[in-house]
């Protein structure tokens, strides 16, 4: 199989409801409500979506939220900063585990 992650697949996302329509309907309704304007603006939510897309490293999500961010009025500087937030937290999460490493190493070291 050579067609993993084809951009065209995103357009067919709703096909996921073909054999489980009720679950799909609940999911898509919930999804729509989550991204509607609320205490956070739709633009802010799209920026969070973009950051999470990079965290889960989903190419479909990255495509969808890149376009969504642009169409909701975010600019490239803001979008790039959002990805740096992802990077900082991911990097920080690795680094903070270094404390565990140091604790274990110090326990068994002279």
């Amino acid at each position: 199989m050579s067609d993993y992650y084809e951009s065209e697949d995103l357009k067919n996302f709703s096909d996921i409801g073909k054999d489980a329509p009720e679950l799909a309907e609940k999911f898509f309704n919930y999804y729509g409500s989550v991204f509607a304007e609320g205490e956070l603006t739709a633009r802010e939510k799209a920026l969070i979506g973009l950051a999470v897309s990079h965290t889960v490293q989903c190419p479909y999500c990255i495509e969808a939220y890149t376009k969504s961010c642009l169409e909701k009025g975010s600019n490239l500087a803001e979008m790039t900063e959002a990805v740096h937030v992802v990077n900082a937290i991911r990097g920080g999460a690795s680094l903070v585990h270094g404390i565990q490493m140091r604790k274990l190493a110090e326990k068994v070291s002279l």
Partner: protein
Amino acid sequence: MKPIKNRAPELEGLSRFADTLEKQNLLLKRDETTTLQINLGLLCDLACRHCHLSAGPHRTEIMDWPTMQQVIAYAERVHFKTIDITGGAPELVPDLPELIRALAPLTQRLMLRTNLTALYQPDKSHLLELFREHRVILIASFPSTNSGQLEAQRGTGVMDSSLEMLKQLNRLGYGIEGSGLELHLVANPSGAFMPAEQEQAERKFKQDLARKWGLSFNQLYLFANAPLGRFLGWLSQSGNLHDYMEKLVGGFNPCTVDGLMCRSLVSIAWDGILYDCDFNLAADLPLNGKRTHVSELKGLPEKEQAIVVGEHCYACTAGSGFT
């Protein structure tokens, strides 16, 4: 009214605009015409990549004084609530001051579209006083508060000169609450994507401009880029044409048709020829399908007259529309 034009191969499989109207039982006909738009020509100091008219510094088409006199005579024969002067860069047309002096008493709202940089040139400073004296409403292009995006669309160095010009306009009172001098901004997306929701984007532009540069303006208008001229060329060359048109076609909103600007506007080109709108001017689709000169028109274009349409019309009917 359907024009006979060849379609780009990238548009294969997408419904024609005229067919979409027909399928939805919609008629695009002229209502009462209340706005006169005057395009003074294609000469511009910038060559923006989204420009539907392919305007630029090397273009020579500008309105001459005899044609301006015929336009003024038309505005005297027929009353327009709004007169909207556009280009190119109107500031570069030599007889602009005379045109403004003649038109200002004839309408309630005299508007002028500025790209800010043409007005920023030192030899144009006299225009500022003229605009203020005649309460000309300024509609300034300012596509993004992000320098990279703005300059990708409009050219290197344009951000600084635009900000400087906005500062000068604010100092004169333009865009300042209570001054009576209106300064509105227009933002087109800097690429093959749809514009943001207007109210939210206006809030963000106001915050950004005030916070970063201490600037203010009245309202922000956001419009989708029309697939014409230089922007159409870029869409095609960059491989974005099909997807962009698919997005516009998919975003067709029947509720926009009633309020489309072409129903209440007549556009005059630099050579005096009449069009339903500035996009039809760019597409060379004249009013009523035939070239009519402003001097031939006795009154307003007739109500119920069919508007000439093309595929670019989808840019005005997608989402919340272009009214």
